[in-house]
């Protein structure tokens, strides 16, 4: 699903965010990307989502070579990727239903299809009864679940999540991680960036550990 070969990333101010990273993530894998703040986790996720370009090296995501991808093709790549950020990034003037349905509206699905899929996915994240509410009326955990529902509604083959449980209490964090497990069991490749080692160790998946931009260990914990 994702192949990186000697990828480095320099920001314009000279900061080296990733240093010669080589890694392969197979289809259907569940990966935790760990490391301290500033280690390069978010940069790596942004590179996977074609938000940031790499400075050197080769990168292939969902069969797209990101070194050669044109700006016209990027939206079509992103339709294959579900992206969840630490802050839910919701449209506050649109209802829960409209927020969740947005990727399908963009992809040009019919209203009937959008309606049935949005309701199904809202039920999956236990927000079925709140489809007409506005995000500002909901709690932080509920808002994060809206973001998750929006990320998976397009049935992406790859789900990228940057600290998805960062603002949630442990019980809710656990609940959301269980949701990710369910998606993974359906064949979705999942990459989660997190510095919460307790949570990461509890779920026991392959970990990619970043330190000062270098990939120093790739391990599987039980």
């Amino acid at each position: 699903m994702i192949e990186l070969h000697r990828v480095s990333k320099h920001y314009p101010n000279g900061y080296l965010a990733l240093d010669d990273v080589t890694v392969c993530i197979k289809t259907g894998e569940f990966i935790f990307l760990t490391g301290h703040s500033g280690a390069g986790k978010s940069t790596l996720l942004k590179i996977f989502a074609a938000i940031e370009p790499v400075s050197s090296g080769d990168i292939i995501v969902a069969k797209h070579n990101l070194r050669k991808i044109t700006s016209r093709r990027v939206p079509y790549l992103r339709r294959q990727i579900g992206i969840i950020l630490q802050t839910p990034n919701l449209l506050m003037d649109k209802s829960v239903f409209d927020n969740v349905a947005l990727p399908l509206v963009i992809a040009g699905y019919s209203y009937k299809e959008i309606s049935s899929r949005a309701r199904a996915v809202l039920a999956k994240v236990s927000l079925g009864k709140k489809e007409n509410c506005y995000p500002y009326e909901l709690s932080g955990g509920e808002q994060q679940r809206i973001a998750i529902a929006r990320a998976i509604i397009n049935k992406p083959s790859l789900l990228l999540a940057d600290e998805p449980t960062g603002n949630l209490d442990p019980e809710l964090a656990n609940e959301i991680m269980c949701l990710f497990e369910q998606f993974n069991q359906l064949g979705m490749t999942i990459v989660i960036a997190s510095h919460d080692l307790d949570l990461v160790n509890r779920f026991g998946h392959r970990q990619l550990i970043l330190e000062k931009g270098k990939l120093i260990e790739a391990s599987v914990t039980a």
Partner: protein
Amino acid sequence: MKRQSQHNYFTSYGVRHLQAGLNSLGQLSRAPFTTLITCIVIGVTLALPMALFILLKNVDVLSQKLQQSTQMTLYLKAETTKAQAQAVVQQLQENALIKEAHAISPDEGLTELQHQAGVTNMLVELQNNPLPWAIAIQPTRKAQSSQALAELGNTLKQIPAVEATQLDSLWVERLCALITLSHRLVYAFTFFLSLTVLLIVNNCIRAATQFHQKEIDIIKLIGGTRAFIRRPFLYAGMVYGILGGIIAWQLVDLLLLWLQNPINHLISLYNDTFELIGLNVTETLYLLLISVVLGWIGSWFAVTRYLQSRRI
């Protein structure tokens, strides 16, 4: 099956455009005062060249009217008799380029001259009437251009009884040249004011993109194409354009209504009538189309520039 799929594609494409259009209308109606002010500014900007265009259109009609009254006078040789003058008139009436010709006797000519000069008894001073027979000619419409008139004059000079020809069209030629120059000035004016409309719409849409920055970033993040992001802004630009165009059209109509009475009064002093001409249906449609296109182009540049400046 393929036809069904194509049908679904076009239906879905149409629905997306409809949604984007309605969305734009919704956004604009949520800020009615700002929208109205912007449309009025666009309307006034478009009304200026339109008013000039209408002014020229009316001057054109007036000048055609004046050109149609262009006369040519043939002065016959001093020894020409009445019968000879009548024969020349008859000869001229057979010419396809001459609409009307009539002879003016030396006495009639003198009476007219006295009337124009404000003198009561010119013959007392002059002893005898020095004026020859003259023939006043009204050329046909075909012969109204300055070149055709000059050619006609040269042809008429060949008639043996004719001493000289006089064409009073120089001032009409000057007027025509002035109108041609004014046309160019109006085109230049229209170009610069259209550019102003483009910049006004561009500025409004740029402000709108800044306001919707978060929404745009989210849409890009979840796979929205540039066309999808651009669409509602393009509709907003077109709405600004068409509303501005309608305001311009109404302003010009009001101006004509306001000017009609004083113009009627002025023209009546010359014992004539003149109805001011406004925009016809085709010109109105052109005005609205140009406004819409300007709105579209202005917003296209604004959104494209914005999208290029964002990293996501």
